[in-house]
């Protein structure tokens, strides 16, 4: 009987262990302690470093642009789209003065970002002042999953300041067709 008593004590001990085990419950992403309860010096150091790294990246981003694409020659081409009901974009190819400068294949995630209002800077380059021709080819699927390729041409007169060109894909509801609009932003 003494042995059985010990065994029962063991069970009790096990149950305590069970409770310990349950404390490791993987689904709990957070400790029982309230958020913000513990911020170690290491965390503070990581925060400070991250702030400085972001600031440094900002400065370097601007420096790189000023160096590689000075405003006097800078031209940027952006791609935007609205709901994309009539056109499922696969890729965009950009030619400037008959020379290919960008050929971009979009991922599903990028397309989703475009549909939510994101605008993709597909090309950032340099052009001399004067007349230039920009041609964009959009490849994808139109209605009824038909392959679809369309081109749009724009003649720009590059001035002394940076120039931005938007290639906008939108739905033309009246014709149930996609529409490709090229717009130069001042």
């Amino acid at each position: 009987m003494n042995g059985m008593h010990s065994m029962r004590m063991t069970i009790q001990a096990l149950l305590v262990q069970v409770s310990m085990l349950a404390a490791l419950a993987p689904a709990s992403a957070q400790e029982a302690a309230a958020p913000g309860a513990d911020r170690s010096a290491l965390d503070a150091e990581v925060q400070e470093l991250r702030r400085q790294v972001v600031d440094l990246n900002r400065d370097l981003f601007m420096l790189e642009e000023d160096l590689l694409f000075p405003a006097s020659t800078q031209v940027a081409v952006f791609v935007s789209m609205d709901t994309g009901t009539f056109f499922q974009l696969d890729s965009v190819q950009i030619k400037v003065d008959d020379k290919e400068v960008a050929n971009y294949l979009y991922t599903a995630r990028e397309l989703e970002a475009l549909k939510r209002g994101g605008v993709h800077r597909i090309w950032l380059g340099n052009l001399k002042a004067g007349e230039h021709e920009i041609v964009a080819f959009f490849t994808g699927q139109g209605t009824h999953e038909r392959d679809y390729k369309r081109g749009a041409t724009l003649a720009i007169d590059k001035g002394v300041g940076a120039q931005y060109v938007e290639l906008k894909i939108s739905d033309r509801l009246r014709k149930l067709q996609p529409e490709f609009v090229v717009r130069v932003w001042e």
Partner: protein
Amino acid sequence: MPGALLLTVLLAAEPAPADVAAGLPAVKVQDLHYGDVLFHFYQAEHFEALVRLASYRDQGRLAAHARDAELLRGGLWLSLGQHREAREIFERLLADPATPAPVRDQAWFYLGKVLYAAGLFEDSERALRSVAGELPAALAPERQLLLAQGLMYRGRFDEAVAVLDGWSGAPEWTAYAQFNLGVALVRAGRAERGLALLDGVGTLVTENPELASLRDKANVAIGYAQLQAGRPAAARLALDRVQLAGSQANKALLGAGWADAAEGGYRTALVPWLELHGRAVQDGAVQESYLAVPYAYAELGAIGQAVEYYEQAIASYDAERVRIDESIAAIRAGRLLQAALATQADGRRGWFAQLADVPDSPESRYLYHLMAGHEFQEGLKSYRALDAMAKNLTTWSASLGAFGDMVETRQQALAARLPAAESRLASVDIGTLNAGRDALRARFEAALAQRDVTALATAQERAWLDLLDGVDAELAAHAGDASLDDAREKARLARGVLMWRLDEAWKVRSWEAGRSMRELDAAVYDARTRQTASSRARQGAPERNAELGRRVAAVAPRVADLAARVESAKSAQERYLADIAVGELQAQRQRLDEYSVQARYAVATIYDRASAQGSAP
């Protein structure tokens, strides 16, 4: 005992982190660069989005979205865990009377979220309750959740329940709040209400894997709470709802066995316990099943099998202790983080499914269990952030060398090209061009004023007019000669026809001439502008280049300094994580020691009883 159990069983659960600023209203982009930021933001590239946002903001390219951009900037800092920066931005937006109401509401919401994360629950509640209008659909439920949890952490359970009761939104959010509140109530000794809330989560019907995992967790919590309260049937009911392939399955199987055993069903208890017996022994539930199985056999009177399983348990515990020692050595040798970084565990869904497949090597064997700990998870997150920073700085460091070369090459090219450019510019005399244009305009305006149709004659018509002038002069020289009367008449007629044509063409020609004059004006203006710009560019080029050179030179030490500090923080973080891991493994080892002692004691007890009864077990 139930209190002690639940204190440890019932941990707060949080939904997987959503996009911090996902609820921002869809913006019709009015600045292309703002759209570029959103392009990265919507792909959850928060660091990249923040860097671009900060750059474009400083370059003045976000004027049309100034306040939206600030809100997003705050949200991005928040998503990176930089609460101080986020808080400053939201407070600044709220202090600005020009901030429109919808932006203000979102700023209050995010400020509430920052304060909540900092543990300032009263301030957080005040901020969250300051939202006056309707928040975007993606934010409203989170506000409710934060309010309820903030109240819960302050022990105001009834108010927290009221906040949740008033919520009729999607269950994805309320389930987490319900779970946490249920936990808190049980811990506060209000088991009935708490269990009812947990039961609500435990009986959720869902296809969502995250919610299904939360449901499992609720059922395990209910199961153990009921077990402790001496209600094994209710415990079994909840534990049976746990998915067999989920992360809670082992705990549920162990608990289910205990529920059966508590009602004397040792044979049925063996079913889940033996199922556990075949699973990976580093799991705590499996380790316990090694004791539970022989215990059940002993209770059923199968003493021989009981001894056999106890001996198996002792051998398994010994082997596991050796493996733990190997793992501790591997962790001390710095191999843990390599293994941890090799997994894509980023704090989001899929951690455990993925970790279940990690190689069974000393450095990775216990990752699954280590990552279950909040402290280790948070530490690993910081380590990953430092690792990403280090890589970022290494890339920039390489680019800076190229930038320096570029500035130098440009300086040399400029010096070589400048004389030719200056000579070309000097050859263009804008003054002469202007004077020529002005003279032409004066003639055109005089012709218009006098309606001088001959002024716009074509070259051919001009030749005819000259010819007629010559004929008229000749005829005038022979004014008295009657034989020339016929010629005079023809000359008069010819001039009349020519003038008629010129008159007829006047309207069109004067309009065209006007247009040509305007085009000429524009061309002269362009030439003048370009010359000025070229001249300015030429004059400013060396200074700009020198300025770029200075910027490259100034930023290089910053990169080097930060890289060194990041490396040092990485090392410190690595040591910190290794300490946590080793501490955890040592605790496990100690637990195994205790289990082993219990198993040996049980075997000895059985042998004692057998020898007392004079029979072999």
